[in-house]
């Protein structure tokens, strides 16, 4: 009964609004308007809720363009009356004194004590009525965005009385997306009523409400409709499965790209140079903190700061890497186990340094606007933008490293020194310099990983520690000394992890992956892509 009442009311409202929308342009006599508006508002301040309902209808039927704001304020309890009878909008109802504005002119009236104000109360019935009214009001808004949100809210909420109005709107609508949503909203209603047209229109739609409508239609008395609905439902399920698969793949690739970024620097220092750098994770952390520091230096410009921290993060970590190489690693040539221990010591010192100098708490790094939000592919699949950026970034970094190793003099020298140090030196290559440059390169890439990671996870002193074991796993799994192996290993481990997660849980998935790698190394100690020929001898 209540629903029926509100429907009738809404229908009336709609009629009124159509008029409003058409009358919006000719707004000549504002004083007259204000007088009429005041009358409309006065009608709200009555005891009986039924009378209030009528007053709301009257407001909607009026051709006043401020109607939406009034109704929203009424719904939020912000439409209030002062002791001297003026109507005001409370801008913020917190604390003792509230800032208010005049309802008619919108002019700010300063702060008023809450005791001077009197709220216009509503009950649940009215609240529902207001909500549906506001939803439909928005469909006439000149803003496409507002129309779209409003249309999306209508999915599954349409009833018989709304259909003709919506059909009119569909004809008038210029924006494709809004029209699509409105058509869908009507189709959902039709399908729920067991009409063939609705079922046909919903075929292939991935919205959850469409599925609800179709499954209702599948139980319809008409066997033709029921069969058609069941068939398209099966098709939708299939589609959804594919979309879910794509989503898992996307998350897997995203996780994989993080692993690749974290591990690719290690693939240079450990894989190519054979130096175990347990402080690699802390070099990543330094990159992340550089991003944070850049954003502190350039307040209000998170995007610019992020772009600038790409070279800055590289430099900071590369310099730290050079310091580690010169200060520790050069004394431990040919003693990999000692190198492991010493660099682990360095990692402890770096962690504690950050804790002492900056803070043991996590720092927040702002995601710039152009990186937040997501790319909506369809109703069942949307891809977050920041992950997409990180994925792209990982591929760019990888390509850059490949170019350096394959196409530059440095890359050539690095490979020469790795394969036969003595021979390379006698050919005039300054091996020590190559060591420093290579280590700086690997460390700098760790810094880049940190910049990217700052967009996905918390930036804290433990950031690096969380990635060091994973990074080593990726390098070892891919095959030491092989950059392609690192890429393939990182991406596939990411995907495997995400595929396992739904049925094993996040922690167990991680454990399974670790155990898998441990067993894999037993089977193929040299990884996925073992080095062959001379490079393998070193």
């Amino acid at each position, binding site marked *: 009964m209540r629903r029926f009442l509100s429907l009738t009311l809404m229908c009336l409202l709609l009629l009124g609004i159509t008029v409003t929308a058409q009358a919006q342009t000719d707004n000549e006599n504002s004083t007259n308007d204000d007088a009429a508006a005041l009358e409309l508002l006065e009608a709200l301040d009555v005891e009986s809720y039924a009378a209030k309902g009528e007053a709301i209808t009257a407001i909607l039927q009026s051709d006043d363009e401020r109607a939406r704001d009034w109704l929203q304020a009424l719904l939020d309890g912000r439409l209030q009356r002062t002791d001297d009878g003026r109507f005001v909008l409370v801008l913020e109802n917190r604390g003792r004194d509230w800032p208010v504005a005049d309802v008619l002119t919108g002019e700010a009236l300063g702060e008023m004590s809450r005791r001077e104000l009197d709220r216009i109360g509503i009950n649940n019935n009215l609240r529902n009525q207001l909500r549906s009214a506001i939803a439909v009001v928005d469909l006439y808004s000149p803003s496409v965005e507002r129309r779209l949100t409003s249309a999306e809210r209508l999915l599954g909420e349409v009833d018989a009385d709304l259909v003709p109005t919506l059909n009119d709107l569909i004809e008038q609508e210029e924006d494709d997306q809004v029209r699509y949503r409105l058509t869908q909203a009507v189709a959902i209603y039709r399908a729920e009523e067991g009409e063939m047209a609705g079922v046909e229109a919903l075929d292939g739609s991935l919205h959850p409400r469409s599925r609800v409508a179709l499954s209702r239609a599948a139980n319809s008395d008409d066997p033709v409709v029921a069969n058609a609905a069941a068939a398209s439902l099966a098709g939708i399920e299939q589609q959804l499965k594919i979309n879910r698969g794509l989503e898992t793949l996307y998350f897997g690739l995203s996780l994989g790209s993080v692993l690749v970024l974290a591990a690719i620097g290690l693939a240079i220092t450990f894989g190519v140079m054979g130096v175990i750098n347990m402080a690699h994770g802390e070099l990543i952390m330094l990159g992340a903190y550089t991003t944070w520091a850049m954003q502190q230096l350039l307040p209000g410009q998170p995007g610019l700061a992020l772009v600038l921290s790409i070279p800055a993060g590289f430099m900071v970590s590369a310099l730290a890497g050079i310091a580690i190489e010169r200060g520790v690693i050069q004394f*431990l040539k040919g003693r990999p186990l000692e190198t492991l221990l010493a660099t*682990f010591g*360095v990692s402890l*010192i770096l962690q504690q340094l950050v804790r002492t100098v900056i803070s043991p708490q996590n720092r927040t790094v702002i995601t710039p606007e152009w990186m937040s939000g997501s790319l909506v592919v369809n109703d069942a699949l949307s891809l977050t933008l920041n992950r997409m950026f990180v994925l792209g970034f990982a591929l760019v970094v990888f390509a850059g490293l490949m170019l350096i190793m394959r196409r530059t003099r440095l890359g050539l020298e690095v490979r020469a020194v790795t394969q036969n140090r003595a021979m390379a030196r006698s050919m005039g290559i300054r091996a020590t310099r190559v060591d420093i440059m290579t280590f700086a390169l690997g460390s700098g890439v760790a810094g880049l990983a940190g910049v990217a990671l700052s967009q996905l996870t918390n930036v804290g002193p433990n950031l690096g520690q969380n990635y060091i074991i994973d990074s080593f*796993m990726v390098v070892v799994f891919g095959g030491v000394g092989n950059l392609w192996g690192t890429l393939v290993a990182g991406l596939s481990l990411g995907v495997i992890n995400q595929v396992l997660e739904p049925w094993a849980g996040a*922690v167990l998935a*991680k454990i399974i992956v670790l155990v898998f790698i*441990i067993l894999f*190394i037993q089977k193929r*100690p040299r990884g996925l892509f073992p080095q062959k020929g001379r490079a393998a001898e070193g």
Partner: protein
Amino acid sequence: MSLTTQSSANFWLTRPFSERSTQIFLVVLLATLALVTLLHVAVPAGNPLHIGAYTVNLFGKYLSYALLAVAVDLVWGYLGILSLGHGAFFAIGGYAMGMYLMRQIGDRGTYGDPVLPDFMVFLSWDSLPWFWHGFDMAWFAFAMVLLAPGLLALVFGFLAFRSRVTGVYLSIITQALTFALMLAFFRNEMGFGGNNGLTDFREILGFDLRTDATRLGLFLATGIALALGFILCRAIVTSKLGRVSVATRDAEARTRFLGYRVERFQLFVFVVSAMLAGLAGALYVPQVGIINPSEFSPIFSIEIVLWVALGGRATLYGAVIGAILVNYAKTIFTGVMPDAWLFALGGLFVFVTVFLPKGVAGLLEHLKRRRHDPTPTPDKEATA
């Protein structure tokens, strides 16, 4: 070290003690045990020479760490395997002991359930998981202290050594092993108390864990276990088996070519070492009163390696010295200036590996040689 092929029963008994350092070490260890007992029991509490129950407990903890360090030195020093996962064996031994101690609580827990430990009642489990059965019996639990880590080491080592995973790779996968176990033990579903681990122990073999006498008893038991473990390790390294191990460490391929099945030697020593680590964990748990998954953390395992490196690899007694020195320093630092501890630990890692590759034992050796040989050695040799 005599290298004769004599094989009488008498020789088996004397060989482990043949080296001077072993004799000194065992005498010092036993004297320390006796002295601490004397100062704790016979000297009245007000006397400055009195050693309180807290200190006895602390020493007991150090000694269990020392036993763990000896186990690591056995594989790292004599076999060349840098295990970054020995904390896992230690923790598993500790969990086996913890499970026994949990079952000993009986119905005195917060929830008063006669069979189920408190955390299971809290998770509203209605029966004991299968792997908890038998742990109410001391003999079974104590056997598990050795068997559970031994079995893990056997399976892991069998797979690893058979496929000739050595060097850094082995280090990294042992680290992955302990990391995976840490994640697993953090889960409540594993049935080991999750995050909080096992705690709130009451008594061991009928002795109340909170009395001073039990604490002294545990301290002495740990000291004796350390002495026995030490002798066992000496017996291994002075045997032919030990010599093959050292040969493997120095030239694995050559040893293989000489006809030795290297992986079998590696596996045997690795399993013995894991069992010793498990024993150390089992002695550690009743003294600190808790076991939780943090013992599995990769950092702890690396720290053990640092003790050995500081004390001096391949000396066994060096491992004991290192473990006690580092942990004593840790107790002091974390008490006085907790922030500085990680700096100190990190600095120690770098310092020891770069400047003191033979550890404290190497330093002692050097000093001794200097005293015997009056001609001063050139400075270079000190760091060589």
